[in-house]
């Protein structure tokens, strides 16, 4: 799986797949770790196209945050759809991540 990503200054936007589930989570986690190492640890995880996510998918979010913070970076979330947001809130991750609806606001939070 080749993740799609783009840069805005020093901030990296990473588009997460439509189904972020156990079958793809290890690969996505590893690709993002490589991006943190090679490009930037200031990450916007773009959830706008994510339709379905399970707890393995949520673990990718946490893993990314832990990896980024380990090298002085940070992670915010962009645009989860209502069902995905409800899962984030059920699992209390809205207390862990800042969540934004607009890309510019997400990037500014990491600036």
């Amino acid at each position: 799986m080749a993740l799609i990503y783009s840069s805005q200054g020093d901030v990296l936007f990473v588009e997460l797949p439509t189904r972020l589930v156990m079958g793809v989570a290890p690969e996505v986690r590893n690709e993002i770790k490589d991006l943190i190492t090679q490009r930037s640890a200031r990450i916007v995880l773009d959830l706008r196209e994510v339709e379905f996510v399970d707890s393995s998918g949520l673990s990718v979010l946490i893993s990314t945050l832990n990896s980024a913070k380990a090298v002085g970076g940070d992670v915010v979330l962009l645009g989860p759809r209502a069902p995905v947001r409800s899962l984030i809130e059920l699992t209390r991750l809205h207390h862990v991540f800042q969540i934004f609806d607009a890309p510019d606001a997400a990037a500014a939070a990491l600036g």
Partner: protein
Amino acid sequence: MMEFNTTVPRDALAVDAAVAAVAEFLREAGVAEQDQFQAGVCLAEALNNVVEHGSAEASRAPMALVCRLEPDWIRFEIADPAGGPYTLPDPDAVDGLSEGGRGWLIIRGWMQQVELRQESVGTRLLLGMRRSDK
């Protein structure tokens, strides 16, 4: 009542295919999007738990899945012929930055019925969610 039956091989991609098939069944039956999502996530967690924690010698035995759509409820029945005796984990035993352990937190949060039965052969997990659109 409408019913969807299938068997699910013990691998993560097969679980995702089964979850997607159930979601399509629920969508075609007119179940609300949020209910489809919640039921699908809980089903994925339950099936993934078997894939992750099943015994190696049982790796070829598929799970049997039934989804029953009732007027007020969505119910799942997952029969695991290789399921050993175990108890349901504590969903509160997870902290904010730990990467795992949220599966049962999700199931306990969204399912009103969670029941694990030890059968003469294997286990049977019963999940039930009250529909929000009814």
